[in-house]
């Protein structure tokens, strides 16, 4: 099998990238997805709030996916479902497998990685205690409830107040469960403010900040968890332990870009994003292999995934048409004080028409500060911010004329 472009992953990132590439004149495209339907995680996100920036409407996850799936079908873009990519090589050859075609050797001239991310598990955060049934990652529980139609429990404690945890607190409540508490290790929630209001406050679900789960009790099924307060160094404070009887513990303790394939081809990875290092065109350290969406860095809004993935689609088209400039004078982005990471990590000004939106995350909650952009260590621009939080991605627009010939652009919080 030969294609000009293979897109690995049929979620919001893969769909937007493939559609953009097709619209820009690439005809031979294949999307590969391991699930039984396109749309990725959007299918289990049945709540609304998607698409405000792109469509100026408040859509549910499946509706947001549907817009792209319809467009994909209208454009006759080929896709294979229930298909797992087993290997990816530097020359962009792929081995994939599914029950219908068996083992497939696929040759492609360009590849876009859009595998998304996965959830951190109990093992990743080392919760002591027994190992009974009833401990789920929040996203897994979401899939069980919203897609498979299984209720995962009746009395629930949720650890982690990221958006999935908050959304699941409401979902479980509406399905008849009692959510006893959402427990958050940090002194603030990592979720969107609107989700705290409409998922917790609306249902009087307590949010316990600076608390964590220190023990899980139960032999066959969870019987309860012990929570405790933590100090500013996140150590548990003795004497604050409290036992909460429950049959289910949901974990919403972070997402990690899924980069097995990226590692297989030895892409340069960024330790702070957990995803591949990318340039202005979303191209990785291997020419012709692009990446976009949560595989690059975890987003909080799907709208930005779509924007970023269009960029990857465009980049792949330029690569295939030999229009991507490979010049050496690149500008590196550098995350200064208060900034956890900046994407892209590398900017080649000659590949940008006018301006480029760079995405970043801050390390902490800041109030009434400024994002200071420096070019080659000289202050260039200040952006006033009344509120900055790690859970909310920030962006800045960079005009290409301003960075031509520069070596480094840095952003910091002041």
């Amino acid at each position, binding site marked *: 099998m030969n294609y000009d472009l293979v897109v690995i992953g049929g979620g919001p990132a893969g769909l937007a990238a493939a559609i953009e590439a097709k619209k820009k004149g690439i005809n031979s495209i294949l999307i590969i997805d391991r699930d*039984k*339907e396109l749309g990725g995680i959007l*299918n289990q996100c*049945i*709540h*609304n*709030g998607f698409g*405000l920036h792109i469509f100026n409407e*408040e*859509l*549910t*996850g*499946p*509706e947001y996916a*549907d817009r792209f799936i319809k467009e994909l079908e209208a454009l006759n873009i080929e896709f294979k479902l229930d298909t797992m990519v087993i290997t990816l090589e530097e020359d962009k050859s792929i081995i994939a497998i599914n029950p219908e075609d068996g083992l497939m050797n696929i040759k492609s001239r360009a590849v876009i990685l859009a595998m998304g991310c996965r959830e951190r598990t109990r093992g990743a955060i080392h919760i002591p205690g027994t190992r009974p049934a009833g401990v789920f990652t929040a996203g897994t529980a979401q899939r069980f*409830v*919203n*897609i*498979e*139609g299984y209720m995962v429990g009746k009395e629930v404690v949720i650890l982690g107040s990221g958006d999935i945890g908050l959304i699941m607190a409401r979902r479980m409540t*509406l*399905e008849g469960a009692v959510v006893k508490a959402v427990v958050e290790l940090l002194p603030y929630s990592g979720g*969107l*403010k*609107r989700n*705290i*209001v*409409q998922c917790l406050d*609306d249902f009087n679900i307590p949010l316990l900040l600076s608390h964590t789960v220190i023990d899980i009790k139960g032999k066959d099924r969870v019987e309860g968890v012990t929570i405790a307060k933590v100090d500013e160094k996140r150590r548990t404070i003795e004497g604050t332990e409290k036992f909460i009887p429950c049959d289910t513990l949901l974990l919403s303790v972070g997402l990690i870009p899924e980069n097995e394939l990226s590692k297989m081809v030895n892409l340069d990875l960024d330790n702070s994003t957990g995803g591949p290092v990318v340039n202005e065109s979303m191209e990785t350290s291997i020419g012709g292999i692009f990446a976009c969406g949560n595989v690059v860095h975890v987003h*909080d*809004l799907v709208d930005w995934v779509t924007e970023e993935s269009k960029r990857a689609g465009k980049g792949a088209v330029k690569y295939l048409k030999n229009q991507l400039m490979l010049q050496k004078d690149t500008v590196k982005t550098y995350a200064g004080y208060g900034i956890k990471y900046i994407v892209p990590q590398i900017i080649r000004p000659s590949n940008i028409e006018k301006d480029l939106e760079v995405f970043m995350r801050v390390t902490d909650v800041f109030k009434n500060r400024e994002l200071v952009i420096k070019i080659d260590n000289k202050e260039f621009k200040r952006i006033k911010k009344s*509120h900055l939080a790690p859970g*909310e991605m920030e962006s800045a627009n960079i005009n290409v004329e301003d960075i031509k010939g520069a070596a480094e652009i840095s952003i910091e919080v002041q």
Partner: protein
Amino acid sequence: MEEKELVCIVCPRGCRLTITKESNDYIVEGNKCNRGRIYGIKEITNPTRVVTSTVKFKNGLLPRLPVKTNGPIPKRLIKQCVEEIKRIEVDYHVKVGDIIIKDILHTGIDVVSTKTM
């Protein structure tokens, strides 16, 4: 003069609103757009929400069909709305936007499918 602080939930930006009641008028501050002003007043006088859930889906690849109210309903009706939705079974082909329950709880709002299945 009454004062209330709220977080706007119209969009993910989450503006912090301060709503002050002066005689019969409400003054909203902290909003970055007009939708925030409308939300702030509504949240104080008659709070509403869009409800999303799933219904049983028979004879399909997957057993649940996601649905939503195609407009906001009064907050106090959320539980009752979900109870109504739970009773429904769908065993025919549906498209995004197809009506599943018409005029739920006499709100004038329909429950519609959010997926083509």
